[in-house]
């Protein structure tokens, strides 16, 4: 199932007594159901008396709302309610999305439905609820809003100019957050350098395009005074908490259920105005209300990400040592910081991560995060990493080029050595243990680098322009409370697992982290089977239900394996201990003489099967009268895990891209992509491969195709899947993946995250490969997406 290269390096000591599943490419738990069309996504759920909501959204980037006429719409067939922002504000409080630890950060209060003003095209203004979606859409045509257009801030470049209008006058300017960092002696390093290279990097806005749009059903039961929300979401407990706070309910009054989620990528980890509006409507109407965004709504109201312009430079000496990096990052985030994670995190990550893989000692960074009248931006897969990596690796290649050094050799010389850990990165990040050198050696071999360079040189003589590009990267995973908790956001960094031996001997595992397709439930089943000591088909996993799973943070910052998986391991090992204690009591033998294997308690010395788990279950639940006085069977245990040793556990990896550029058309053909990934202990190589590959293709999307384009008045020009290009199968290369395993010591499992490094590295690798191909033309492009037009301009063909 995996090529030999996929499995190289998987030589870690087992983490459990009888390890049978951890480390293997087990078929994924739950996959068959999805392949048979039996998944349950939000739109598959139909509740009695359910209404459907659609929104009248701002048609322009910035407008004043003068008057809203709803009479005609209200009279349409099937209409249950037409609600505006003033009415909605009576049930749902406004919010301000800032974090305390991002010093000086500011944002304005935001409402579930716009009050007085709408600040981006697509902001919800009026909600129409009807018995069917078609009826609601029919009635929407008759909602009449009297509005006048206000001056809009579109370009982030001019957002801070004194002449530019203020989006929120009470904030004093259009600056959301600013940060400066100056470490070492940057001026001296640049002054003494033999080589200085610089470039301005541009990144287009893009968005996640989850195939299942954002959607939810809110159901308020007035008898119980209880709110149930079926939600396509990554963080159910976070949403439970937010609904409590915005609607004045207590946690026990709110139940959030996430069944199958059709793609998330960070798009579904935020709280959107229409989420709150849908809940508010269900409470007003005392009946279920379903919201499913259509694709145009997705493009204008799902978070966007990654609009940055970064001036960067690098200093190096003749010997080939990187001496310093300096960057100036400007990023635009829309009119509000997004709730509750805030839109300043992405730029902050760029500052943290630029130059991160390298051992240089001088770094200066400046960041301005500005408001604009465009769709709000926030965390999307990789958060800041693809930007930081493309800037760092672009500068590294420029320096290597000036020094006439091979880019791979230059990297080998400059990465932080594998024996230097733990250490701090120059921006202050704490690095536990990384494997840059090993990863670089692995990729060199995997891609047969010398042969590839030879092929490139030969083809170049024939007028075929191919390029090889590398990107070394670090990725932060397994976050501690340093990410959100310390800033005042009620987003759990800990996660929990409850595990129960059922009477029949089946193991039920309830986990706070849920499944959006990554295979999270699959790896939990593997961990549970090994740690309790049962076959994997004897394990049942339950996630995505705040009423039954332990309180946790959910899916973000690649924490599912490292944090959720550790909680599962701890809970399951504790259950095995309890099973042994109970067996000891039943058999009247010391626990030290017993062990567990494949759903049986065995005699440790002889391996004789003494008790099947079904018998343990039978006695533990139904015949407790036969157990010693005061003995409690405790066949359900809960354990929580929080990573506290470091702010984050960093992973690392390296990618390489091989491309061909047609200088006549500017067309880029991706020939091959390689990735070496070190995510600590690999629980399921196949699933990690697929996380890496999927993430790489999303990164390639940003590098070559994807961009939310706006016109000068702030209107989105490409709000459909036909206009907004995402990678399709034909344009994508085969992607070879290899693993290096450097487990984290911060947990027993040793797993780090694997979900985002692919997205982090691909744009840098592809950009460098294109620029390598363009080297004979003495041209380079640093503006993503790198379109044919930009290439042709760079080589002065147009």
């Amino acid at each position, binding site marked *: *199932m995996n090529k030999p290269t996929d499995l190289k390096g998987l030589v870690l000591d087992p983490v459990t007594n009888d390890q049978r599943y951890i480390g293997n490419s*087990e*078929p*994924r*738990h*739950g*996959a*068959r159901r*999805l*392949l*048979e*069309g*039996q*998944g*349950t996504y939000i*739109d*598959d759920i*139909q509740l009695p008396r359910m209404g459907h909501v659609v929104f009248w959204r701002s048609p322009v980037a910035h407008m004043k709302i003068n008057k809203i006429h709803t009479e005609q719409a209200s009279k349409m067939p099937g209409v249950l309610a037409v609600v505006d922002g003033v009415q909605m504000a009576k049930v749902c409080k406004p919010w301000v999305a800032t974090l305390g630890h991002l010093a000086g950060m500011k944002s304005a209060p935001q409402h579930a439905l716009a009050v007085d003003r709408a600040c981006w095209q697509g902001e919800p203004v009026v909600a129409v609820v009807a018995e069917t979606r*078609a009826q609601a859409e*029919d009635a929407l045509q008759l909602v009449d809003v009297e509005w006048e257009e206000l001056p809009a801030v579109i370009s982030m470049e001019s957002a801070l100019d004194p002449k530019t209008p203020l989006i929120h006058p009470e904030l004093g300017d259009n600056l959301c957050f600013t940060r400066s960092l100056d470490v070492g002696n940057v001026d001296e390093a640049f002054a003494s350098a033999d080589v200085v290279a610089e470039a301005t990097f541009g990144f287009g806005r893009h968005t*996640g*395009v*989850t*195939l*299942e*749009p954002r959607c939810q059903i809110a159901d308020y039961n007035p008898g119980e005074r209880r709110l149930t929300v079926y939600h396509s979401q990554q963080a159910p407990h976070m949403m439970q908490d937010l609904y409590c706070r915005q609607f004045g309910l207590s946690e026990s009054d709110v139940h959030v259920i996430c069944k*199958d*989620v*059709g*793609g998330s*990528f960070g798009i579904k980890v935020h709280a959107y105005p229409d989420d709150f509006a849908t809940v508010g409507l269900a409470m007003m109407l005392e009946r279920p209300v379903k919201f499913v965004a259509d*694709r145009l709504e997705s493009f204008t109201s799902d978070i966007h990400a990654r609009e940055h312009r970064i001036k960067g430079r690098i200093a190096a000496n003749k010997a080939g040592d990187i001496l310093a990096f300096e960057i100036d990052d400007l990023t635009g985030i829309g009119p509000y910081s997004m709730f509750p994670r805030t839109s300043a995190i992405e730029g902050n990550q760029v500052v943290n991560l630029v130059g991160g893989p390298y051992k240089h000692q001088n770094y200066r960074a400046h960041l301005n995060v500005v408001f604009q009248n465009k769709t709000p931006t926030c965390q999307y897969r990789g958060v800041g990493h693809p930007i930081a990596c493309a800037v760092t690796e672009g500068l590294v290649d420029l320096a290597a080029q000036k020094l006439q050094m091979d880019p791979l050799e230059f990297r080998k010389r400059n990465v932080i050595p594998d024996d230097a850990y733990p250490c701090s990165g120059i921006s202050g990040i704490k690095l536990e243990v990384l494997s840059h050198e090993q990863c670089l050696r692995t990729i060199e071999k995997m891609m047969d680098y010398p042969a590839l360079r030879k092929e490139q040189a030969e083809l170049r003589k024939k007028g075929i322009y191919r390029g090889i590009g590398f990107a070394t990267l670090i990725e932060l995973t397994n976050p501690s409370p340093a990410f959100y908790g310390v800033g005042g956001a009620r987003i759990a960094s800990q996660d929990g697992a409850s595990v129960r031996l059922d009477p029949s001997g089946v193991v039920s595992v309830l986990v706070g982290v849920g499944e*959006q*397709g*990554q*295979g999270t439930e699959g790896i939990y*089943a593997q961990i549970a089977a090994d740690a309790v000591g049962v076959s*994997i*088909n004897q394990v049942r*996993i339950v996630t995505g239900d705040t009423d039954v799973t332990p309180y946790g943070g959910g899916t973000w910052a690649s924490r599912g394996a490292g944090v959720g998986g550790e909680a599962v391991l701890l809970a399951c090992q504790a259950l095995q201990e309890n099973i042994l204690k109970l067996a000891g009591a039943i058999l009247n033998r010391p626990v030290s003489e017993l062990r567990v294997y494949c759903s049986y308690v065995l005699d440790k010395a002889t391996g004789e099967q003494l008790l099947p788990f079904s018998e343990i279950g039978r006695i533990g639940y139904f015949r407790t009268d036969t157990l010693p006085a005061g003995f409690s069977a405790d066949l359900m245990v809960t354990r929580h895990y929080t990573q506290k040793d470091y702010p984050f556990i960093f992973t690392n990896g390296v990618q390489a891209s091989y491309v061909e550029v047609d200088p006549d058309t500017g067309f880029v053909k991706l020939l091959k992509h390689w990735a070496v990934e070190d995510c600590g202990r690999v629980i399921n190589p196949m699933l990690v*491969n*697929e996380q890496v*590959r*999927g*993430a*790489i*293709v*999303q990164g390639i999307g940003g590098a070559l195709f994807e961009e939310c384009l706006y016109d000068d008045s702030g209107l989105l020009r490409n709000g*459909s*899947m*036909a206009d907004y290009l995402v*990678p*399709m*199968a*034909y*344009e*994508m290369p*085969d*992607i070879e993946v290899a693993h290096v395993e450097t487990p984290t010591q911060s947990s027993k499992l040793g797993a780090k995250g694997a979900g985002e490094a*692919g997205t982090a590295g691909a744009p840098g690798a592809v950009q460098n490969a294109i620029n390598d191909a363009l080297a004979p033309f003495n041209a380079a492009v640093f503006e993503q997406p790198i379109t044919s037009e930009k290439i042709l301009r760079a080589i002065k063909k147009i």
Partner: protein
Amino acid sequence: MSLKKKISMTVNGNLVNAEVEPRRHLVDFLREDLHLKGPHLGCEQGACGACTVKVDGQIIRGCLYLAVQADGCVVETVEGLTKSGVLADLQESFMRHNAMQCGFCSSGMLLAAAELIEKQPKANREEVREWISGNYCRCTGYHSIVDAIVDVLDARAKGQKIKPVSAHA
């Protein structure tokens, strides 16, 4: 908009009589009136392929096809094709390669792949990529889907069945 038209069709082997508004597209009819969960709506613009179903033996975009157009036709969805075993080899191979993540594209992808296997049994890797380029997958990066389809093509060429993988709940 309340003008309704009587239609009749066979859906996954069952005769269905219904009254629908002429504007109702086929997938809304299958999902909302017949409560099928297999065909999904990703874009309703014909771009993503998640709504792919079969009408009279040919795959179509269910969001660009009106329910009234299917009057008198044989309609098959992933549910029916699973039951009849038509997709069995592909489903096993998709399982083996983890050729799906969130699963939202899978029913459309499987139907497209099944048609490829039928119409182009000697397709190479590049041709497989080209064939499925009408179906978005946002999760996998396509590599595993291509692997899964190529395995089925290879097995068919040798007259073999794909061995079932052990299925967990």
